[in-house]
């Protein structure tokens, strides 16, 4: 199976970056990890629980993150979003709800709707670094 090509423009930007993956569904996080690995990224985590994710953020070892909004029993992941924002770490939301399900205060964070194509994920992450 070919993912996003290692020579693609996204891969150029993303190679070597440390990306935190926060996702409570194991199977889905595997997919995300595969995409990131294919792009040459270093996967931090994945973290499925609030506490673990916050600890990884505080560890300061990340360049960007893919953040699932709904963490099941742990509730919404906005505290993690706040932690990332306060550290100036760029990230994208991953959600099944769609853009209107995001709290108004967080609406300008890029949002990917599950299931999303690999290309979409790659472009969204690359754009985070292009902006900075």
């Amino acid at each position: 199976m070919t993912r996003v090509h290692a020579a693609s423009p996204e891969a150029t930007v993303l190679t070597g970056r440390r990306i935190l993956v926060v996702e409570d569904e194991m199977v889905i996080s595997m997919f995300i990890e595969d995409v990131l690995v294919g792009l040459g990224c270093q996967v931090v985590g994945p973290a499925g629980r609030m506490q673990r994710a916050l600890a990884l953020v505080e560890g300061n070892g990340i360049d960007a993150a893919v953040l699932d909004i709904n963490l099941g029993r742990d509730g919404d992941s906005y505290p993690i979003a706040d932690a990332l924002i306060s550290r100036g770490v760029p990230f994208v939301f991953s959600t099944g709800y769609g853009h209107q399900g995001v709290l108004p205060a967080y609406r300008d964070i890029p949002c990917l709707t599950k299931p999303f194509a690999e290309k979409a994920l790659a472009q969204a992450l690359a754009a985070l670094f292009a902006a900075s």
Partner: protein
Amino acid sequence: MTGITAVTEDSLNDDRLGSDATLAAAEREVARLRAELDETRNLVRFNPQILWAADRSGRITFVSERGPEVTGMGARELLGFGWYLTPHPDDLRPMQRAWARSLRESLPFDIQHRLRLRDGTYRWMRSRALPHRDAMGRRAAWFGCTEDIDDLKRAEADAYRALSELRAVYDTAPIGLCVLDADLRWLRINNRLAEMNGLPAEAHIGRTIREVLPGLADAAEGLLRQVVATGDAMHGIEVAGQTPAQPGVTRIWEESFIPLRDESGRVIAINVVAEEVTQRRHVVEALAASEARFRAMADNIPQLAWMARSDGTPFWFNGRWNAYTGHAVGTTQEHGWRSHIHPEHADHVSQRFEEQIAACKPWEDTFPLRGSDGEHRWFLSRAEPILGQRGRIALWFGTHTDVTERKAAEQHRELLIHELNHRVKNTLAMVQSVAAQTLRGRCDDDVWQDLQGRIFALSAAHDLLTSGHWEAVGLGDLARQALRPHMLPGTPSRLLISGPEYSLEPKPALALSMALHELATNALKYGALSTAAGSVTVSWVVEGDELRLIWRETGGPPVSPPQRRGFGSRLIERGLAAELGGTAELDFHPDGVVCRLCMKHNPT
């Protein structure tokens, strides 16, 4: 004229002896007689009545000066039967007859008649005369007087007229009137009361209540006797019983008993006023019974309910209202039910309520009401006008139905749908992931892309359904949603979607969405969307009871039918047809693929 000393022959012949003394005495006597005569003349002349005398045969022999003064006729003219000229022509004959009768039978003469005055007008007079017997007992003369009674007569006429009027008013009054004496016997009764009693008026007079109205006596006697005894009036007394007018039927009157007193203050009679209220009582009772039934019913319905006057102010609340708000019966009027509206809603609810009341239109609104525990619950509230006489609003009837559970259920449902959507999307993402893991290194990329494409199509269709709350989806929106991902950027004109507004139910919507994905994928790979020149038209119409949709590709490379029917074809020709309950035709026309769908029009 007594005391005259008789002048005898002897005394006249006795010259020298006492003639001087006798003359003096005689002169004194004459003088005295003259004075007496003058006095008598004056009495006659200046008497305000006309004094007259007649002889045995009825001829007038003397008329006092008053006569000519009053009548303007000469004294001599009035003598004899000249007086015939003086009475009013209509009164003459009766006078003559009366006079003749009196003369004949020596009866006092007494008659009222009109007399013609000097100026030609007439005044009423009373003429009387008594017979006078002479020393031998024979009727010698008649002595009479004529007295002016005109003023008296007019007053009498006025009084009589007034009395007649009063009597007419009394007799014809639409209310029953009567007067009873102290023994409760009828002195007087008017037509209305006689009619209500069922006997002629005359049959009452002099008889007692018990004699005439045995069916009422028990009710009335005691009270009437009390009025006589105490002298206090009674008003608004209800008397129920039967009268001969309607035997066997109990009727009801509202009566007043007013004592009438004589000069010494003793009660000598009772003035009775009686108004029949039988009908009115029946109506009032029927109304009360109806209202009682209504209240019983209103107390039993599960809603909180109230009744208000035509201006919207409530005057009655049902048991449930009182139970919910904790108010005792009859108290919420002071506060008004609106004081229970949740503060945030109070203003606009009140405003809308007042508007509808003023416009005489039914009112409906949903808002929270505060209960006795201080908590609020949601109520669907309504008010309906109830029309009275002449189609005007008499009352408003209001209800509040507790919809708290329903509202909570709705909110819960919203939440569930939201959750459901999230679950489904996550599941699709898991499918995507699993498929990716499974196919890693085991198949060509385009196979993987096909599968992923189908998963995305499912996901997009699912989004559309969620946005319509899983109730219905517009066909136009569905087509656009299904085809958007397949449009190359900057080429909007290559796709034309046209058709009337049409609502699809979730199941057929999903099936159609997948079919369009397959058609579009195929067009992109091999058909009209694979070249810049090609274009696709998706159009539909509703004809009769059928929805007809056509997918038409043009301007693409020549089409040849595939050797093997792929999943897409199967999906369309069999799956979709079954889902839509209609037919699907896939035509690999050389100029471009055409797909015709036909399904029964199911209005949602």
